[in-house]
């Protein structure tokens, strides 16, 4: 057994192991979609908290969010939740709401990847409900 041959065998074995792992990963990626943050949030609001959840309609700013948007009625207060991918995008949505609707005060909240546009000033428990469904 020459050292070169041992090294070649080692390389072949290592490539086989790595390709096997990548094969499993590729097969999974092709056949499964992990739930998005929006889907997880929607599922949480609907199933775990029992709120009414529907598609967002007529909110051009929320509809432009890269992570999607959902509307929920949280303890009687309607909230449009948008999911963004970066702080820059969150700022873009905040500015767009500002120019479209003027100063919203506590009715507009940017928290991490979530931008929430409330119909009325939210109470503490209403806010907490959306925090609990953030992923």
């Amino acid at each position: 057994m020459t050292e070169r041959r041992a090294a070649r065998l080692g390389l072949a074995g290592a490539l086989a192991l790595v390709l096997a792992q990548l094969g499993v990963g590729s097969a999974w990626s092709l056949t499964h979609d992990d739930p998005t943050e929006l889907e997880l949030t929607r599922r949480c609001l609907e199933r775990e908290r029992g709120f009414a959840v529907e598609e967002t309609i007529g909110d051009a700013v929320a509809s432009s969010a890269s992570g999607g948007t959902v509307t929920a009625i949280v303890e009687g207060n309607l909230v449009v939740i948008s999911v963004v991918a970066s702080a820059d995008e969150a700022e873009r949505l905040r500015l767009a709401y500002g120019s479209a609707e003027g100063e919203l005060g506590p009715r507009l909240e940017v928290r991490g990847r979530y931008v929430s546009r409330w119909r009325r000033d939210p109470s503490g428990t209403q806010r907490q409900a959306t925090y609990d469904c953030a992923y």
Partner: protein
Amino acid sequence: MFAWNAWRFDWLRGYDASANDLYADLVARENALPSETESGVWHTPPLWFALVGGLRRLAEAAGWEPVQRPGQLLAALAGIALCVVVLLLARELWPSRHALQLVALVTIAASPALVRASAMYHPETLAAALGTGGLLVAVRTLRRGPTYASGITAGGLLGLASLTRAWALPVLVVVSVAVILGAATRRVWGPALALVVTAGALVAPWLANQQLVHGSPFAFNREAPDAALLGRRPAAFFLGPRALRVFDHPVTPIHRNELVPQLYADWWGDWALTWDTPPQPLPGALLPSHVVAERVRQSIAGIVPTIAGLAGLIALAVLGAARRSLAIALVPAASLAVAAAFVLFTVRYPSTDGDTIKATYLLLALPGAAVGTGFVVDSLRPVGRLGTLVVVLAVAVLVAVQVPFLVL
């Protein structure tokens, strides 16, 4: 780099930092082992804590803040010692192949898991340095012939390593078996016996204490589930279905508890976000984009060295078997034993947060992979100056790409 990082790294960001400090303080003040309520890492052997506890008291007396810094510098010193030992190991096996030695040295010194561990207030690097020191002495013994001094030294180093972290125990077992096989071939039993007795004398009291006080020599800080071993982890743990996501989002919580992807992401970056990042974000919070981008770059940079390291371990095993060389076979066997113990541990103790899958647990498997990488690269490189130049350039690029991540 190791000392610089240790100096700059916030000691509280290291694994189990507070529990480590409670343990070290208790050992230094009361010369006692912690109970299960006094430190969350009571299951860890006491050598590093005794050393660091002493350094901690000196720092207190000198008014040096933080008093944990000497412990971090000890971890850095042990990390540097590990790199030197790996260089000596490569030299011992292939004395005239300088490119092999250089690649082995660079591979280990630029390994992110070792660099991170060397900055932490944590015993992992000390165990790795001592254990690999014992491995080196055993390899020398197998190549040059046994002496009582080499048996006692190897046993002493491996016993002390096992008194630092339990991950050294598989190395101790494999080295003992190899040295006993070597003794059987030469019909010289004394040095092998000296190795086993020395290591046993050092580690047996600790294991006996664990058995008597905690009910098992390998007691851990949580109960193992009452289920069949193979039923404790889902198929996703073994298969790693989200493996491709290490190239777009190699941080928590993606591929949590998927063994290979989480380990890979943690080895080349820091899956749990403890290194040069803001604290782990709350649910829904955004990570700064450069944090993810830097770790993605690390994941991509890790592809070639990972393949080379695996190839090296397989190649050394094949070569050792083909040439019936215990000295060569011992190097990959030690790595394999540590990897097997790690997999057994992670299966035995599942955790919802992925806490039992950490790349730093595998530091004692790294020397074999580093020497193996050197072997494969040196054996397959084109001969002549051009080949050497290509290897040097490739290694330099690989290190340069990682520097922004490795240096705090």
